[in-house]
C-alpha cells in the first residue's frame, strides 16, 4: 500500500499521472508531459513535490563528531545555515546513501536523505552512533517542494525577501507567502533553485502560492519523470543507479565528497587510495541509433567493459545519452563503445560529465 504525500489531492487537481515511487504515490508527470516539464525548468521554472524525501535531525554535544564518523565528507568549519553533500558508507566503502546535511546551529544538524533509504539510514545512524547524540526522524511531519529554474529567484522574491544568497546555504525559521518554512538554495536539476521545507499541513497552500506567483513567468508543476531527466542531463548521480551498495563513491565520481585527510570514518580503509580505482562513472553519448537505458552491458568489440546505470533521451540537449560504470581502461573520453540494447547494438562514445551545465550555457 503506497502512502500519499500531503500534496496528493493537489496533484489530482492538476492532472498528475500518479504512480508508486519509493513507497509513495507521486506524479510521474502532469498534463504537459516530461519533455515540456523538463524544458520549462531549463528555460523558465518548475515546482516539484519532493515530500517523499527523508528528514533526520542530529543533535547533541557530539553531533559533529558523529557526522564526521558516519559520513565521508568533512563537516568541520561550517557556518550556521551552510549545507554540505556527503555519501554515507559501510565498512567496505560501499554506499549506503547520499545526503545533504545542514548546520542549523552548534550541535544541531538537519539531514536530508533519499526516500527509499530513509529507514535503512536511520537505523544505520542509530546502530553506529557514539556518545551524546540523538537522531530523530521527522520525515512524516515535513513536506518539501523544489522550485527550480532560471526564473526561480524571481518567483520566490514575490513571496519573501528572506532568501539565501549563496548556493548550498539555507535560512531556517523563515516565512514565504506568510507560511513558516525553511528555504535552501539547493536542487537536483542543474539549474539555480530552491527547496522549501514546511510542515505537511501547509504544503498545498505553498504549492498554490508558488503556482500563482510563477504563472506569468511560465512556471508549471513538474513530475518525477522530468526530475529524473533533468538530473541525468546535468550528470548528477542517483542512489541505486550511479552509486549503491555495490558501487563506492569514488567509482561514482564523488571523490570531492570523500575527505580522506580527516580522522577516521566508516569505510575509510577502502576509500583512501584513489589510484586503486578499477572502474569509474562516465557519460555515454549515443552516436548510433537508439536509446540506452539502465542495466545494459557495454562492450568494446566483444569484450564487456561495464554497464549502464541510467539512460534516456535528453530533452533539452536533444540526443540520447546514458551514464555508465566502465573499466578504467575504457573510461577515457572519446572511447567508442557498443551498448547491448535488448539484443541490438547501439554505438556510443565516452564523453565528459555533465552533459549539460548551466555555467557553460551562460558563458555561451
Amino acid at each position: 500500500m503506497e502512502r500519499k504525500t500531503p500534496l496528493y489531492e493537489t496533484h489530482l487537481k492538476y492532472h498528475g499521472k500518479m504512480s508508486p515511487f519509493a513507497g509513495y504515490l507521486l506524479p510521474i508527470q502532469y498534463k504537459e508531459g516530461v519533455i515540456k516539464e523538463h524544458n520549462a525548468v531549463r528555460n523558465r521554472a518548475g515546482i516539484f513535490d519532493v515530500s517523499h524525501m527523508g528528514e533526520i535531525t542530529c543533535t547533541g554535544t557530539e553531533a559533529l563528531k558523529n557526522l564526521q564518523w558516519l559520513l565521508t565528507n568533512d563537516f568541520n568549519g561550517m557556518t550556521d545555515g551552510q549545507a554540505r553533500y556527503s555519501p554515507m558508507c559501510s565498512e567496505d566503502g560501499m554506499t549506503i546513501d547520499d545526503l545533504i546535511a545542514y548546520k542549523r546551529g552548534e550541535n544541531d544538524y538537519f539531514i536530508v536523505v533519499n526516500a527509499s533509504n530513509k529507514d535503512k539510514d536511520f537505523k544505520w545512524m542509530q546502530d553506529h552512533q557514539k556518545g551524546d547524540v540523538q537522531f530523530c526522524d521527522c520525515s512524516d511531519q515535513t513536506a518539501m517542494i523544489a522550485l527550480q529554474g532560471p526564473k526561480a529567484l524571481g518567483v520566490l522574491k514575490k513571496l519573501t525577501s528572506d532568501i539565501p544568497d549563496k548556493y548550498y546555504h539555507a535560512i531556517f525559521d523563515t516565512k514565504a507567502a506568510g507560511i513558516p518554512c525553511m528555504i535552501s538554495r539547493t536542487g537536483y536539476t542543474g539549474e539555480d533553485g530552491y527547496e522549501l521545507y514546511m510542515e505537511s499541513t501547509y504544503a498545498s497552500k505553498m504549492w498554490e502560492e508558488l503556482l500563482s506567483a510563477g504563472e506569468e513567468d511560465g512556471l508549471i508543476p513538474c513530475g518525477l519523470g522530468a526530475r529524473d531527466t533533468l538530473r541525468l542531463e546535468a550528470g548528477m548521480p542517483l542512489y541505486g543507479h550511479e552509486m549503491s551498495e555495490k558501487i563506492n563513491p569514488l567509482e561514482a565520481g564523488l571523490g570531492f565528497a570523500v575527505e580522506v585527510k580527516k580522522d577516521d570514518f566508516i569505510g575509510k580503509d577502502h576509500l583512501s587510495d584513489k589510484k586503486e580505482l578499477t572502474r569509474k562513472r562516465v557519460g555515454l553519448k549515443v552516436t548510433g541509433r537508439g536509446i540506452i537505458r539502465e542495466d545494459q552491458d557495454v562492450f568494446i568489440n566483444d569484450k564487456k567493459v561495464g554497464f549502464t546505470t541510467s539512460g534516456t533521451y535528453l530533452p533539452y540537449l536533444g540526443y540520447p545519452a546514458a551514464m555508465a560504470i566502465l573499466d578504467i581502461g575504457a573510461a577515457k573520453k572519446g572511447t567508442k563503445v557498443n551498448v547491448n540494447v535488448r539484443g541490438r547494438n547501439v554505438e556510443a562514445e565516452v564523453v565528459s560529465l555533465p552533459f549539460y551545465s548551466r555555467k557553460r550555457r551562460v558563458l555561451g
Partner: protein
Amino acid sequence: MKVLKDLLYTKTHEWVKFEDETTALVGLTDYAQDSLGGIVFVNFPEEDDELISGEVFADVESVKAVSDVYSPLTGVVAEVNEELLDSPETINDEPYEAWFVKITDITDKQEFLSPEEYGAFVEKEQEE
C-alpha cells in the same frame, strides 16, 4: 481521446486501415501515444521483412520507457514511413496520420475491435 470510425483496432492499441483485401497501413492509437508521452525514438522493420500477427514488429521509446508494438497482421512490409524515423513526435501530434508500415500479401490477421468496441475497451482500461 480520439477513435476514428473508419479504422479497426487491436487490444494492444494498434490501428489498421485496409487499402484492399491484402494491403493495410498500421499505426498506434491516440490512447497509446497519450499514455506513452513524448515519443523520441522509433525502431521499425525494413522493407520486405515478414511480419507475423501478434508478434512484436517495432518499438517506440518515450523519455520514460520503451514499448513494443505488435503486428496485427501476417504479411510483408511493403513500405516503411521513414519520416517518423526523423520526427517520431508526429506520432503524438497526428497518431492516425502517422502510419508505421504498409503491409501487403496479408495471409492472416488478428481479431479486430470495431471503433465502438475499442472505445469501450479503452474506457475500461482507464478505470483500472
